């Protein structure tokens, strides 16, 4: 099962897209305890694109595959926004610091890296590609 969605970079379209993705996955994957983790990761990236990248379009492709009764979702987000600096992608919050000394921000991409089984970002020919792979239990 493969689906493509095209979004304008607006927050209200993010909500609609997430609802469609979740409903589509739920129609195949009947009992997934960690579907919410995939939806959170997807939301974090989409909101980042909308708020910071100055993209004019977002394309979301996702594919569900079943192997040995286990489902996996492969997704690619493509946008034409600004390239994400490497230091932003590589930053993780220092959890050893007291709350008063922690920097604001950076938690969204940290969530993506922690909640997704395989994550990769590339900037190619003016487009950002966000690859995610998530196994459902």
């Amino acid at each position, binding site marked *: 099962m493969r689906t493509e969605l095209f979004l304008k970079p607006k927050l209200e379209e993010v909500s609609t897209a*997430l609802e469609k993705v979740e409903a589509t996955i739920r129609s195949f994957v009947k009992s997934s305890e*960690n579907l*919410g983790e995939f939806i*959170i990761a997807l939301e*974090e990236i989409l*909101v980042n694109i909308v708020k910071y990248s100055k993209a004019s379009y977002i394309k979301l492709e996702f594919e569900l595959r079943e192997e040995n009764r286990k489902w996996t979702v492969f997704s690619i987000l493509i946008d034409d926004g600004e390239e994400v600096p490497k230091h932003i992608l590589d930053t993780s919050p220092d959890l050893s610091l007291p*709350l008063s000394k922690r920097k604001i921000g950076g*938690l*969204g991409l*940290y969530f993506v890296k922690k909640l997704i089984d395989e994550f990769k970002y590339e900037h190619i020919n003016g487009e950002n590609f966000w690859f995610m792979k998530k196994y459902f239990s």
Partner: protein
Amino acid sequence: MSLDITKEVKDGVLVITLKGRAAHSANQELNAVLNDIKMTDATGVVFYMKELSYLNSMAIGSIIEAFKLCTALGKKFCLASLRPEIEELFRLTGLLSVIPVASTLEEALSKVSA
């Protein structure tokens, strides 16, 4: 499902109940809770999350701000009844060792009232 926020004072504690999904669309509503904390005479604040099924990084940021505000105002603070998937997000952010958590509302009220 969107986020439903209700507030009530129980035994001198402001109980903020979050139900549904705390996605980006709920950001303003969650930030508005900070004003309620500033305005209340309650000596403690509990976030009751038994029916909260989804929490993104911005919502966690708002809860961190609420905790910091309570600390600055001398109010006690506690999270109550986290679902496993929500508790996992707090664990990932290292907050479980910083912010008090109770398994039930009654336990949270007891901690905050003490």
